[in-house]
């Protein structure tokens, strides 16, 4: 047998892994490069230029859709994180009680159903309510986003809670802290990294959603992804590359932040 026999070696695995990482990043890199293309076609290189970023910036539809995405994303992220935090507090650090399994299933339900089905269901349900109430604002989008963001926000918060025991809270109670005070001064500060991670996750998930938004939105309620989908279906201009590049940058920034927050241990 070979002198340096490595038990961890498997033939060809490293090559496949390398291929995977290259293949994962290559299309994204090409997309970003072409965002800086001076030519108006995406098939030839016409020199470096920022003109597509400029044109996207001056496109009122893009700005409008971006603002709507942020608006929906931030409201949905905050609401879903608050609800998920409460739900996580209610479903961890306890002996099993009747309904606990039901709660787990209910909270994770949006993850189990393909988005297209949820989209269709909400289209039907909200169209009824629209006729009934006459309201057709972005409230429907906020409600839909909040619902499917809850299981994502719930994940890191629950994980964090499960690693915290009740000793400190019990000590606070022994020292005559009210439950609210113990929560605010002990539980919340310890739970904070989990809540932040949940908030960021929920925001990214809301920002990325195409399918459910596409089915729920009324006319003139495009978010950035649904606007981009419409443009891509109609034909490609490097402007989409520019928008994608900006979007990518934001996602990477949030993910990086998320990574640091969730990796930090106490």
């Amino acid at each position, binding site marked *: 047998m070979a002198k340096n*026999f490595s*038990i*961890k070696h*498997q*033939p060809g*695995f*490293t090559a496949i892994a390398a291929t*995977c*990482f290259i*293949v*994962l*990043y290559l*299309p*994204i890199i*090409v*997309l970003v490069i072409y965002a800086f293309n001076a030519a108006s076609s995406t*098939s030839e290189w016409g020199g470096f230029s920022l003109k597509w970023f400029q044109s996207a910036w001056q496109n009122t539809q893009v700005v409008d859709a971006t603002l709507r995405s942020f608006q929906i994303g931030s409201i949905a992220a905050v609401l879903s994180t608050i*609800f998920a935090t*409460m*739900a996580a507090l*209610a479903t961890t650090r*306890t002996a099993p*009680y009747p*309904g606990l399994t039901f*709660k787990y299933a*209910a*909270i994770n*339900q949006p993850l*189990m*159903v*393909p*988005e*297209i*089905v949820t989209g*269709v*269901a*909400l*289209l*039907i349900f909200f169209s009824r309510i629209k006729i009934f109430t006459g309201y057709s604002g972005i409230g429907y989008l906020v*409600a*839909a986003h*909040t*619902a499917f963001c809850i299981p994502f926000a*719930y994940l890191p918060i629950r994980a964090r809670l499960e690693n915290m025991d009740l000793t400190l809270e019990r000590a606070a109670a022994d020292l005559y802290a009210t439950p609210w005070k113990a929560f605010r001064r002990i539980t919340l500060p310890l739970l904070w990294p989990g809540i932040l991670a949940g908030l960021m996750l929920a925001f*990214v998930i809301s920002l*990325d959603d*195409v399918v459910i938004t*596409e*089915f729920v939105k009324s006319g003139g309620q495009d978010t950035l*992804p649904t606007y*981009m*989908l419409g443009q*891509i279906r109609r034909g490609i201009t490097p402007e989409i590359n520019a928008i*994608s590049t900006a*979007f*990518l940058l934001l*996602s*990477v920034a949030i*993910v990086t932040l998320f990574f640091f927050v969730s*990796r930090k241990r106490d």
Partner: protein
Amino acid sequence: MATAEEVAKAAERRDVRDRWLLSAPALLVIFLAATGPLLIVLVYSFLTPGSYGDVKWQFSPEAWVSVFLERDIFDDTLSIAAAHVTIFLRSIKLSVVTTIATLVLGFPTAYFMATRSEKTRDLWLFLITIPFWTNLLIRTFAVLQIIRNEGIVNTMLLKLGIISAPIQILYTDTAILIGMAYVYLPLMVLPIYASMEKLDFRLVEAGYDLYASRFQVLRRIIFPLVKPGVIAGSILVFIPALGAYVTPSVLGGGKNMMLSNLIELQFGQGRNWPLGSALSIAVMIIVMVALLAYVRNAGKSGVRHG
């Protein structure tokens, strides 16, 4: 006077009640804007289509008939059912092939990541997480730019003289397959990596001590131990692939429909909401069967490996 036991019981009841109150907002929002409407879809699938979309409140099993059966009353409805069967089979086939492709590529990748040193492992994990959290539409769009006739793949092959005319990949099933495998690969790698990270390599060493070959170690030791991760990854890829909407719309063009596009059609030009609802429920049923198989399988392997 209440006994200590009674006091404890009352406190426990109060605790459970508080826990229900705390989880009420989350449960309510999910019920109103996710779970509840699914029940309405079920009801709609048994109604009569309205002339301008929506439904007439009249019971009809018609929608379900046109999902499953080839109607033999009129000739024209017969061909439509055949199209449905084709789309069902195509969706299932593409989802299964995507799952297999991501498994074949993802398993070695997860293994590679798990066998790095502690320090660099986080970096590899980070590299696989970035595409995972990047917008799916943008990643699909990136694939589109690579595989189209003027894209980098065809340009390279032309320049190298391997082909004389661009290969039409875009707007074919192959394009959908490439796109789905690309966007869902991280979903396969992450759960496998999670199981692989916990792998005790002393077991692998023991295998080699007993004269196992590399392949035997892989098949008889590593694979059974990370099987839960493999099953979880397969489910995580299969479910969204079956319901995929963005990838087939962008890379498949109008002709190569998958189930989601067929469903969308019923709510748009098709104006057949009951059929769209029935198709949605059918997708749900396939997903449920897959999930059930997963739960049973996971249970079994849990017993075997303690």
